[in-house]
C-alpha cells in the first residue's frame, strides 16, 4: 500500500472494473438473443463466472487475502458443486433403471 493514495485513483480503479463488468453485462444480454441454441446457457454462465471472478478478485480482494480466507471461499464453491453433482447423479439417471426393476414395481 502506498503512503498516501490520491482519492481520484481509487475512483478510477473502481471505474475501470465497473466498465469491464458493464461490457460483460451487455455481452450476456446480446448473447441471449444470438441463435446459438444449446450454447446459450454455457455462454451465459461463463460470462457470469467472469463477472463474479472480477468482483471476487478485485472488489473482494480475494487475491491478496490470507490462505484461510481463500480456502473458505474455495470450500464454499466446492460444496455447492458437491450438492449439484450428487443430486444430479440421481435426477439424471431416474429413467435408466433396468426393466426388471421397474416392472417389479408396477
Amino acid at each position, binding site marked *: 500500500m502506498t503512503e498516501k493514495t490520491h482519492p481520484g485513483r481509487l475512483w478510477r480503479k473502481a471505474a475501470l472494473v465497473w466498465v469491464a463488468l458493464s461490457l460483460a453485462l451487455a455481452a450476456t444480454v446480446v448473447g441471449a438473443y444470438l441463435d446459438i441454441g444449446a450454447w446459450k446457457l454455457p455462454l451465459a454462465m461463463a460470462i457470469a463466472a467472469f463477472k463474479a471472478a472480477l468482483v471476487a478478485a478485485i472488489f473482494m480482494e480475494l487475491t491478496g487475502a490470507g490462505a*484461510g480466507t481463500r480456502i473458505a471461499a474455495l*470450500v*464454499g464453491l466446492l*460444496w455447492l458443486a*458437491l*450438492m449439484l453433482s*450428487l*443430486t444430479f*447423479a*440421481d*435426477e439424471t*439417471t*431416474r429413467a*435408466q*433403471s*433396468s426393466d426388471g*426393476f421397474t416392472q417389479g414395481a408396477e
Partner: protein
Amino acid sequence: MTDAAHPGTPDHGYSLPPSYLGAGTTLRSWLLTTDHKRIGLLYLASITVFFLIGGIAAAVMRTELMTPTGDLVSADTYNRLFTLHGVIMVWFFLIPAVPTTLGNFILPMAIGARDVAFPRLNLLSWYLNIAGGTLALVALLLGGVDTGWTFYTPYSTLYSNSYVTLAAAGVFVAGFSSIATGLNFIVTVHTQRTKGMTWMRLPLFVWSIYATSIILVLATPALAIVLAMIVGERVFDLGLFDPTRGGDPILFQHIFWFYSHPAVYIMILPGMGVVTEVLTCFSRRKVFGYEAMVFAILGIAIFGFFVWGHHMFVSGQSTFASLIFSLLSFVIAVPSAIKVFNWSATLYGGHITFEASMLYALGFVGLFTMGGLTGLFLASVPVDVHVTDTYFIVAHFHYIMVGGMVSAFFAGLHFWWPKITGRMYSEGFARAAALLMFVGFNVTFFPQFILGFMGMPRRYWSYPPEFQILNLMSSFGAMILALAYALPFVYFALSLWRGRMAGDNPWRATGLEWATASPPPRENFAEPPVVDSAPYDYHPAHAEPTEREDARDREDQDDRPEDPR
C-alpha cells in the same frame, strides 16, 4: 496445589484473580455475559431443559408400546410425540450438546486463549438457540407437528394440518445459532492459539470441535434453505416440491440429507474428541497415532458430506445413485474404524483406572462400534431395503446418538466437572450411574435390533402381539435408563453444595485447561501459557507406566485444601 509439574503452568503462589463464577452473581451478569465459560453454562442449562422435554416424550412412547394395542394415546398423538422427541432431541439437544457446553467452556482454555474470537456473537448464538427452541416448543404446545423430525414432502407441504411452519421456523432460527457457533470456533482456533500451540499440538478434542464447526457452517445452510422452501410452499403456495405441478418430492430429501447426514457427524465428532481426552488420561498413555486421528477427524468431516443418499435407498432415487452412495458410505467407515483401532491401541499397555468418566468413555467405544457396524449393514442396499423404516434403523441410530454421543457427553461432563465447578462429585454414585446407563441403554435398544429384523416398522403406536416380549424389555430398559439419567442430577447437586474441593488438576491430566485454577478466573490464565510439547504428554508408547509415581501423586491429592465453607 498439585499441578506445578506441567510446562507453561503459571505459578499460583501469588494471589489469583477471582474465579469466573465470582465475577458477578446477578441474573444480569449471567444473561449479558460474554465470558465463554458462562455462556457454556447457559447452554448447559438450556440443553438440560430440552433433554428433559424430549425424554418425557420418549417415556410416554415407551409406555404406549408396552402393550400391542394403542391404548394410552391415539395414533395421531403418537405421531406428534415422536416428532416432538425427534425435533427437540436432534436440534436442541444433540447438535448443540457437546460443542456449545463443553466446547464453549473448554476449547478456548485448551488452546490457551482468553476467550473465543467473537464473544458477543457467542452470546447472540445462545439467544438464537433459545428463540428457536421457544418457537419449536410453542408449535408443539399449540398442538404439535405430525410429520416426523424429517419434515418429508409432500406430506409436510400438502397434507399435514399441524404446526409445521412454526416448527420449521424454530429450527431455521436455531440454525443461525449453529452457524454462529461454528464460525466462532473456527476463527478462534485459527487466531487465538497461544504461543507454541501449533496445529499438530492441538488436543484432539479441539480438532474434533474444529471439524464439527466446519460441518456446522457448511451443512446448516442447506437445512435452512430447504425449510424456507417448505414454508414458501405452505404459506405462499409455491410449487417447489409439489408432484401435482411437476415437482419432485425426492429433491427435498436430497437437500435435507445434505444437511442431516453430516449432522450425524456434528453429533458424534465432538463425542469422539471428548473420549480421546478421557481415555488417554485414565490409561496414562499418549494417544496412539495422533496424526492418523487428526486426519480421521477431518476425513469424517469431509466424507460425511458424500453419503447422504444412503437415507434414500427406497425413496425412488435412481439405482445408479444408490450404488454410488452405497459405495461412498462404506468408505466413511474407514476413518471411523481408524479411530476405534487407535483408541484400543491407546489403551493397550496403559495404566487403566476406572473413574466414572472413563466408564462412560469405554461405554462410548463399545456402543459406537456396534452402532457403526450396524451402519455397514445399512450402507448395503439389499439389507437396507429389508430393514428400512423398521426398529433396526431406530436401534442403529440410537446406538450412535444415545449410546455414543450421550455417553460421551456424560464422560466429558464428569471429566471437566471439577474444572467447571471447582468441586468433586461422589465417585461411587457416578460409577453406579455410568454402569446403570450402559446396562439400561442396551436393554432398551438391543431388543429393537431384533424387532426390526423381525419386521416391526417404526413410527406405529400399535403392533402385533408376538412383538410384545421384546417391546416390554425395551420399555423396562427405558426405565433403567431414566433412573440412570436422574442420578447425576442428585450427585451433581450434592457436589455443588458440599463437594470436596477439586484442586487445579484432580485427574493429573495434561492439557492447558488443567494448568489454571478450578474454577478458572475470568481471563482463564494469570498470564498467557506457553506450550513446548505435544499433547497427551503422559508416558510414551515404549515406556513402562510410572506406577510408583502415580501412587505418590495420589497421596498428594489427598492433601488438597479443605472446603473453606
